[in-house]
């Protein structure tokens, strides 16, 4: 039982069950047919037996005060309807005196307490059935009853039972066979899509993560395949993200690292400008640190969008926390950041950490590239929840603005900072939670906003 076995085929399992059911049914039917056949055979041959016994009883007459049996041949011809059966007959009077019979010495042991005229007993060591018929006489010279006992072995009964059974069972056996064949066919055809699916999966390139077709599959399999497709899509995205991250990281790091090397060489070569070079080196290194932070944050964001659970988040709290963390004081000392939030919660369903990262990058861009006054806020615009950052500047050039959001967006003017990577994080977050990024120019400045679908208002209200 416990030892491992080769996996059983679903077809075989279903067919085995069908076969077992059919066999059980067949056994029950065979049993009942046998019973009925036996009953029918017993009834018909019991009638013959009774007819013969009655014939014999009828032929008894009283002659000179003695019962005389004029044994009728017809009785034996009746019994000969069972041509291969042995016969027994015996006529006795009430006192058990033998009048006539086949053999005086053969005694039949009738079962005790058998009320019925029929009983079964052994005849010369062979099972046989007997009938007892009593005839009463009330003559002048003879009075009393005479018992006729007639018996017959059971060959013909058994043969008839067998014939009846065979006649009934043969068509059923054929029908059963047809049922087995048909169920085999049905089961195979029902399981064919599963086989096709299994074959398809086996033949699939392990790197092929495109979704499988579900339109021709039965409903029972649609769910499985849909789940599998979802899983593969996520895998696909993660693999993509990983690949992008690596290539981004290499790309982003190449220029700063090259610059640092140049600065270091310069500082080494030129003693006069060493102090200045070291200062630049420091600035570069700091910038590189920021870049690494951003890369890490982006990687985190991309990872989390697929794996972290989505929770209800209030965008006001995100804005508030950004301001309260006071990162901007390091980034742009002296610049004041205003927080503009209302009374109503601005609820979205998202990952809080990713939203924090997006907000931080939006604010960082505004502080680096914009002009005072810089403000951050959250509000509901219709069915959209908006987290925005505004500054008093004109915003990026049109050409830059168009390219914003793509991953490699660095130009000379932003050598110190990194607007491109920051925005790309915002974009990723927006895409992950079904939103987008909007940049608009107002009369009094520039607004960059992360726009997400608002969840139905709930929570503290």
């Amino acid at each position: 039982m416990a030892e491992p076995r080769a996996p059983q085929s679903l077809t075989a399992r279903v067919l085995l069950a069908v076969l077992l059911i059919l066999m059980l049914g067949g056994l029950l039917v065979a049993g009942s047919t046998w019973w009925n056949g036996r009953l029918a055979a017993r009834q018909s041959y019991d009638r013959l037996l009774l007819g013969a016994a009655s014939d014999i009883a009828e032929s008894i007459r009283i002659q000179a005060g003695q019962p005389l049996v004029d044994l009728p041949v017809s009785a034996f011809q009746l019994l000969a309807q069972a041509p291969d059966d042995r016969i027994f007959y015996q006529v006795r009077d009430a006192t058990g005196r033998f009048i006539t019979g086949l053999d005086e010495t053969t005694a039949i042991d009738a079962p005790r307490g058998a009320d019925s005229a029929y009983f079964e007993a052994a005849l010369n060591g062979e099972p046989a059935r007997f009938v007892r018929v009593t005839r009463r006489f009330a003559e002048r010279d003879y009075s009393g009853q005479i018992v006729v006992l007639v018996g017959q072995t059971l060959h013909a009964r058994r043969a008839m039972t067998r014939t009846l059974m065979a006649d009934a069972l043969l068509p059923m056996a054929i029908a059963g066979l047809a049922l087995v064949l048909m169920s085999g066919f049905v089961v195979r055809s029902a399981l064919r899509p599963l086989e096709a699916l299994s074959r398809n999966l086996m033949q699939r390139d392990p790197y092929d993560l495109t979704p499988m077709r579900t339109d021709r599959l039965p409903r029972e399999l649609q769910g499985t395949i849909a789940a599998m497709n979802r899983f593969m899509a996520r895998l696909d995205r993660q693999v993509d993200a990983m690949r992008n991250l690596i290539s981004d990281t290499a790309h982003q790091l190449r220029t700063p690292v090259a610059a640092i090397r140049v600065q270091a060489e310069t500082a080494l070569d030129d003693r006069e400008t060493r102090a200045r070079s070291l200062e630049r080196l420091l600035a570069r290194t700091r910038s590189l640190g920021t870049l690494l932070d951003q890369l890490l944050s982006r990687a985190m964001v991309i990872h989390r969008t697929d794996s972290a659970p989505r929770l209800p988040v209030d965008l006001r709290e995100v804005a508030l926390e950004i301001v309260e963390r006071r990162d901007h004081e390091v980034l742009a000392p002296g610049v004041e950041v205003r927080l503009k939030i209302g009374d109503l919660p601005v609820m979205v369903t998202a990952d809080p950490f990713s939203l924090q990262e997006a907000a931080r990058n939006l604010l960082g861009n505004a502080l680096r590239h914009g002009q005072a006054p810089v403000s951050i806020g959250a509000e509901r615009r219709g069915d959209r929840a908006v987290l925005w950052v505004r500054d008093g500047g004109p915003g990026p050039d049109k050409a830059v603005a168009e390219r914003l959001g793509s991953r490699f967006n660095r130009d000379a003017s932003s050598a110190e900072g990194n607007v491109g990577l920051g925005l790309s994080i915002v974009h990723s977050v927006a895409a992950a939670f079904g939103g987008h990024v909007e940049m608009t120019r107002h009369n009094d400045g520039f607004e960059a906003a992360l726009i997400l679908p608002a969840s139905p208002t709930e929570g503290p209200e």
Partner: protein
Amino acid sequence: MTRLLTLLLAAVLLFPVSARAQEAVAEFGTGATRLNVRSTTDIGIVRPVIDRFIDLNPDLSIRYEQWGSNALFANSRAACAGDGPVADVVLSSAVQQMVWLVNAACAHRYRSALTAALPGPRIWRDELWGITAEPAVIVYNKRLLDSAQVPRSRFALLDAMRNRPDMLRNRIATYDIAESGLGYLFAFSDSLEATTFGAMLEGFARVDAIATCCSAEIIQGVARGRFLIAYNVLGSYVATARAPEIGVILPEDYTLILSRAFMIPRGARHSAGAERFLDYLLSPEARPTLIQSGLVTVLDPLETGLLPSARRAISLSPALLVALDKHRRQGLFALWDDAFRPVGGP
């Protein structure tokens, strides 16, 4: 034990001839396996058949015992009850007794292609087989009886007995049914077959017919002119007697056809050899020999003028048990004794 004694007592009382045992014994062949065959058939008749069988089966030899039918019945019954040696083959013309033995579970079962090919009336339970086909005939003395006077049916015989009782007085013979199981069987079959039986007995009584034993004796009597007519004689004995004076009639109203019954007793020591003997007797090869011996009579309607509907085969069936019923026998014997009062005359 008491049962056995009762049986013996009954056998002795019912069949007083049983003490006589076998009438003749013959040995055939020198094979190692010796079949003990007990039969009612005369050795002289059956000899060529057995000779041929032994020729074909040199490993077998046969001790052939010729018995009277009632004695053979008593012997087989006793052997079946465990008293006395069991024969390997019992072959009897008194088929009712054989049916009784089979019904009493005294027989060995056997089935082969040849036995299975037997027609229904000649096989019972695969334990009893009809080997021969012998008609019960009327024989007459050709010299003493011209062809116009020959009775061709029972009706003609009845008329003859009524019209010329003087001529036939004391000169009609038939089997004594008390002595011969075969005679009893024929009488019983006649009593079932037609109402002529009563009239026949009456006629026999009128002409003081003779009831006597043994086919050979009757046929010789006819041949010598002691009897003019013999009724219900087994045709095979006539055929082998080869007496030119004897004419044979197959009664046209009906002719009884007897098939001697072959049984292998249960507990036979050489049942395999007995089975071979049975298969030989039923085989096409034995048929010419059987026909020559008169044991099988081919009843060609063209030759004999006997209509197929007039053939009455005595079939091996439990209905023959009626013949052995005590009351039935008593009734038949009573009628018989009325007809054949103590035999007079030489």
